[in-house]
């Protein structure tokens, strides 16, 4: 189990109306093959920007991102397109294609590669089965529930048989019960297919439930990383502390209000 994603000194500054905005300020991170790695940070911390840099949607100003030993920041456009086969991405607001059926959403990345029809059909049905959408293949995403939509999003990313799945707040728009189902799905995908998952979120629950190791993103830097249990019980950073404090407070509150009945 070596490092699968290695990020060195990653910097990204956006030019905004009110001047340059440095969002990533020297990110160092390493994710091992086959793990579910959590990245937590407040909203606006730069989590999505980091995710977008990893799959080439955003070009960093400086630094290196190695995925399976390959530096994705130095790839040509065409090479990047190839590389993206190995990097699946799942989004908070699903970003499904409303003009296409669930079937065609899932089939998309094979369609653009002009995959043979029967192979495509077989793969779509396989992945749909895996995420529990076999009954919904002819529906349009517009008529699905949030959880079902995210299943489509996951299936669409999985069909290309990626080695790594980036989940950018995949459960943040879902209710707690659906969140749990989607996290279970991600965990089983990780286990059965050995797909490395980069789980980006602002929900500590999600990380505690799914991840082995985690990192805390604050001020454009990774200020803490390590085993989830360690950070939970002994956070060294302000964000880490705040998150765990809020987390434990919620638990206490629940307990107290329960006790009051």
């Amino acid at each position, binding site marked *: 189990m070596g490092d699968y994603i290695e990020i060195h000194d990653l910097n990204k500054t956006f030019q905004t109306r009110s001047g340059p905005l440095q969002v990533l300020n020297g990110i160092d991170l390493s994710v091992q093959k086959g793990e579910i790695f959590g990245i937590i940070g407040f909203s606006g911390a730069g989590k999505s920007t980091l995710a977008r840099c990893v799959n080439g949607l955003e070009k960093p100003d400086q630094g290196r991102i190695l995925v399976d030993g390959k530096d994705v920041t130095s790839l040509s456009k065409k090479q990047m*397109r190839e590389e993206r086969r190995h990097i699946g991405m799942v989004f908070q*607001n699903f970003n*499904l294609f*409303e003009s296409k059926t669930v079937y065609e959403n899932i089939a*998309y990345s094979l*369609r653009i590669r002009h995959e043979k029809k029967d192979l495509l059909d077989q793969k779509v049905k396989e992945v749909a089965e895996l995420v529990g959408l076999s009954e919904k293949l002819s529906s*349009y*995403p517009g008529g699905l529930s949030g959880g079902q939509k995210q299943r489509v999003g996951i299936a669409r990313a999985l069909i290309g048989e990626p080695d790594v799945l980036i989940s950018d707040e995949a459960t943040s728009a879902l209710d707690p019960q659906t969140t749990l189902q989607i996290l279970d799905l991600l965990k089983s995908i990780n286990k059965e297919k050995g797909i490395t998952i980069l789980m980006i979120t602002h929900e500590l629950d999600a990380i505690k439930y799914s991840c082995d190791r985690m990192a805390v993103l604050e001020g454009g830097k990774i200020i803490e990383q390590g085993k989830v249990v360690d950070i939970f019980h002994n956070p060294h950073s302000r964000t880490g502390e705040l998150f765990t404090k809020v987390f434990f407070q919620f638990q206490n509150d629940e307990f107290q209000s329960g006790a009051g009945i």
Partner: protein
Amino acid sequence: MSLENTPFWEVIRSSFSAAIWKEVGPAVWDTVYMTVVSSIIMFIIGLAFGIILIWTDKGGIRATPIINGPFGWFINILRSLPQMIMIIIMIPVARSIFGQSYGTNPCIVAIAASCIPMYARMVESSLLEVEKGKIDAARSLGSTDLDIVFRVWIPEAIPSLIRGFTVTVIGIISMTALAGMFGAGGIGDIAVRYGYQRFQHDKLLACIYVLIVIVQLTQSAGNLLSDHVRKKRGLM
């Protein structure tokens, strides 16, 4: 029959008479023909222009201000020309294409030229409405630029593109009436020749009925189609 010497309701009754419709009827087909052909030309070129605009836009496929800027200017200039002036400008162009500057086909060129820039802007704004996240998703799945435009961007915008197209087709209908003054034939020609020059207000009224019906039909067809697509997609 003129309103100046005949009671209003008599003019109205006469406007439904067979004699009037014998003359107005064929003109309806001229108008429909001009509208359909101009709309097809406008659709193809306007869509292409809209795609160029969005392709080179800051939030588009590849930000290319050096193309987007001048091209935007070009379209704005065309848009700022009143339709009448556009027809006059297109007379020499039409002559070079058809060998004549009068008649239905030359006016089609002028009508299309006048409506293309408007439709291009409509296409642009319809495409800009598509959520950026979908484009990101398409990219993350390994799409080429062409995949993104033709498999995602345009299909996602179809209901909005239909609505924009409906509006511009209605613009074309009203412009065919104007083109009637330049020998294009059709309803506008009848309205001007009889209604304006000879005070035959019954014929003018008949022309108005036709225009109202055509516009209503176009709008309803557009709404139905757009709603049908949205219903099919579970969006309403």
